[in-house]
């Protein structure tokens, strides 16, 4: 009697269990690509797919799988890869750009992608100042019109020979995506979440559609009606499903890629990768040996507040520059796997060639480690060394008001604070460190409430102009008001005039590099900012399920899995089996 009841119960349980099992995964792990995102914690905004809201997290698959760009800049081949566009023309004075769109591109709901969508997107940004990137579009573009279904004419406010590369070709991370007018036309773009799975939203042109979104992961399925196949432009990417998931902190993500739970990670320290590789040789970095990482376009640098004593004196700025051993800073910050930065440029070929041509200028400048030169300056300024601290005639020491991002950011920043403080003190200065969280840091930084700060310099990729333009006099704001760039308020009209001239020339123009050298010489003499270390990002891939990842030996594209350019990686990788 009793056992019969029990066996009935068991049968019921088994049936239920079967039902549970069936409704589990429907795409095999071998056909699924799992990307660990660049975020270490979960995202509260799991229903925001409007790329122009500040809260959106495009790196969680939107940028790589759904949105497609007009052009992609390939850091490795140094070419502009046309994608949704086929090319562009520009007027001789670089104020008018005509962009030709690709024929046959379709949105994921089947509607055609046309010039009207482009015009709509630009006008939407020009009329909604709260949208992400809107201010830049408004400042650059005077007007936009569709010449026909596949041709758009942009008229700029100021001549700019680099406009397409800077604004529409994924210079760093991403570019503004075009949105479908037929969906967005009657929406308020400043609050439209662009998320409704039942309606097939978000609608973009890419080969994947969103199938689920939660705070810790987003799942995308491949769609077979992708326009690229119909037009013969490209094949379907191999992964049938892509999952972009929060990876977690370093301690945990190492275990996840080691156990083949993920196929790619956005960041891992080089030494953790070494540990992972010793246990799972299928995990690879950009290089097979140190430093394993890929050079991020934004190196770390040290900036002076040139309105504050004593840093308003270029000599004093030089004295501080001389006491920083950049190799040691890089090695400490990256645990022996670092790379010092001679200047504020990322270590990319074109820029490094340019720096090499300036070797005499660098040798004559304060951009190197030379404590004796620093001491000489200090003595000439009337300071004397007492118990290892420089003091003026009244016995006052110099206290560096040092602003840093320090709150929970990660080991690189924390270690940089410590090693820089140590070097300042070794050099005879006292230090008062403010290591703040993002909000307080940003406010103090852009309002100029600091003496010396460590920051990251996003600017040039191929030619020196963009980084140099970050220090233009026009950007100088009074102390206490919000600046957008040039937080150090370095005001050099002569230099700025040169930067203006450079801005109107293409790097291929005759005399461009002579002018750039002239501007650099002024920069080096005045020392408004100094380079510290390259940001090396280890972006490991796992070859257990997927092969064909970009590496130094197979460098078809730069490897950042959270950038828009990762679309090219996803179109390239193949199953391992």
């Amino acid at each position: 009697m009793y056992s019969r009841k029990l066996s009935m119960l068991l049968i019921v349980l088994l049936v239920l269990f079967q039902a549970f099992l069936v409704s589990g995964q429907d795409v095999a792990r071998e056909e699924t690509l799992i990307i660990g995102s660049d975020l270490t914690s979960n995202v509260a905004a799991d229903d925001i797919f409007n790329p122009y809201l500040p809260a959106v997290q495009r790196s969680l698959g939107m940028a790589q799988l759904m949105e497609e760009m007009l052009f992609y800049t390939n850091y490795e081949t140094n070419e502009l890869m046309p994608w949704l566009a086929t090319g562009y023309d520009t007027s001789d004075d670089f104020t008018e750009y005509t962009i030709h769109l690709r024929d046959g591109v379709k949105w994921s709901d089947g509607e055609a992608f046309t010039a009207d969508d482009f015009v709509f997107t630009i006008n939407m940004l020009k009329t909604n100042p709260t949208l992400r990137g809107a201010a830049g579009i408004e400042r650059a573009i005077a007007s936009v019109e569709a010449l026909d279904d596949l041709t758009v004419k942009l008229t700029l406010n100021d001549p700019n020979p680099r406009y397409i590369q800077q604004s529409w070709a994924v210079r760093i991370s991403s570019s503004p995506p075009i949105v479908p007018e037929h969906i967005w036309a009657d929406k308020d773009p400043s609050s439209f979440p662009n998320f409704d799975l039942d309606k097939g939203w978000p609608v973009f042109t890419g080969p994947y559609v969103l199938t689920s979104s939660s705070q810790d992961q987003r799942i995308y399925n491949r769609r077979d009606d992708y326009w690229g196949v119909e037009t013969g432009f490209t094949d379907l990417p191999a992964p049938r499903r892509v999952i972009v998931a929060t990876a977690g902190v370093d301690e945990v993500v190492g275990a996840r890629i080691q156990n083949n739970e993920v196929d790619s990670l956005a960041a891992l320290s080089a030494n953790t990768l070494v540990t992972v590789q010793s246990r799972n040789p299928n995990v690879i970095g950009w290089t097979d040996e140190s430093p394993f990482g890929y050079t991020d376009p934004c190196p770390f640098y040290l900036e002076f507040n040139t309105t504050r004593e004593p840093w308003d004196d270029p000599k004093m700025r030089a004295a501080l520059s001389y006491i920083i051993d950049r190799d040691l800073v890089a090695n400490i910050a990256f645990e022996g796997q670092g790379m010092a930065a001679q200047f504020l440029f990322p270590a990319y070929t074109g820029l490094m060639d340019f720096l090499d041509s300036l070797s005499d200028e660098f040798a004559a400048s304060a951009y190197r480690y030379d404590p004796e030169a620093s001491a000489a300056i200090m003595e000439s300024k009337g300071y004397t060394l007492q118990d290892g601290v420089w003091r003026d005639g009244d016995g006052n020491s110099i206290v560096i008001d040092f602003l840093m991002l320090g709150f929970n950011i990660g080991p690189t920043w924390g270690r940089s604070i410590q090693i820089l403080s140590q070097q300042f003190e070794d050099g005879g200065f006292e230090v008062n460190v403010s290591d703040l969280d993002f909000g307080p840091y940003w406010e103090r930084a852009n309002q100029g409430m600091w003496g010396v700060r460590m920051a990251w310099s996003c600017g040039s990729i191929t030619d020196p102009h963009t980084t140099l333009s970050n220090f233009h006099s026009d950007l100088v704001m009074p102390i206490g008001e919000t600046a957008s760039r040039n937080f150090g308020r370095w005001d050099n009209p002569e230099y700025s005039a040169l930067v203006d001239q450079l801005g109107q020339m293409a790097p291929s123009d005759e005399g461009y590099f002579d002018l750039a050298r002239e501007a650099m010489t002024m920069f080096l003499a005045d020392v408004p900012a100094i380079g510290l270390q390259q940001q090396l990002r280890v972006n490991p891939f796992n070859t257990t399920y997927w092969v064909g990842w970009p590496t130094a030996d197979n460098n078809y594209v730069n490897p950042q899995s959270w950038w828009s350019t990762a679309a090219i990686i996803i179109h390239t990788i193949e199953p391992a089996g």
Partner: protein
Amino acid sequence: MRLPVSYIAKRFLSFVVVVWVAASVNFIVPRMAPGDPIGAMVARMELQGEVIEDSAELIAAYREKFGLDGSLWDQYVSYLTSAVQFDFGHSLSYFPRPVSDIILDALPYTLGLLAVSIIISFTVGTLLGALIVWLKIGRSGIGLVAPLLLLGSIPQYLLAIILLFVFSFALRWFPSGGAHALGASHDFTLANFIEVARHGALPIMSIVLASAGGWLIGMRSMTITVTRSDYLTLAKAKGLSQLRIFYHYVIRNAILPQVTNLAIAMGSIVGGAILVEVVFTYPGLGSHLLRAINNQDFTVIQGMTYTLVLSVASAVLIVDLLYPWLDPRINYEDQ
């Protein structure tokens, strides 16, 4: 017994004052930091390599949109109004997501984690504490539970790391973090349920191991006091069964202060669990609250802390109100 009306009124009044002041502190303190949520967001985006042209304009536009450019008083009034209505509007750094959605997304995880671990540790700790005294186990008994007591003195987060090292990295019995397997769907299936349980095991274990000892000690000393009281001698004299005495006289009387302590400890339990959530990258309230503070997302901070304050204060209030029924010996008019 006589209904202590003035006692109830006093308690309610104090409840309102407590919630109001605590909520105000939670309004003021996060705003004491310089900077604002949009600036923090711009800084983050730029650190990720995105270039935000003219960020000053974006910051100004959003300040206006969110009313952050209004006076602190206006913001305070609108906060209090929203608190009373239990509507906290939209997150600032995840606009236009409503604050309530963010809380509701994370709440099941935190509640699950806390409920299971508190129930286990409270029950185990309380029962063991009472039994040790009741069964007169004495010194050797203390020896049996000593490991639990010692673990109880070590913080949860250190235990979490040790457990992570032993059971996840070395033995590989449990996953190292998160609440779900990477890539698994979140549908309610048995397989997923098992996965969620496996992911919850280590965080729960660290909270239980760290807190059971405290309940044990509290219960033990209360039980000692109770066993010495006259009515127990009387009950024994009446010849009531051991089990009956143990349950009706010992447990019921000794557990009162335990329950009060549980209500008071609520706040710190939630606080301590935040670190455990961080260690295991568990998708609960803790990590959201921490990030909201990092982002200076005032509306989310307010929503979450108000909920927290309200639950702790309510727990204390309920315990205080239930006391007259639970323990009629206390003279309330005098309190």
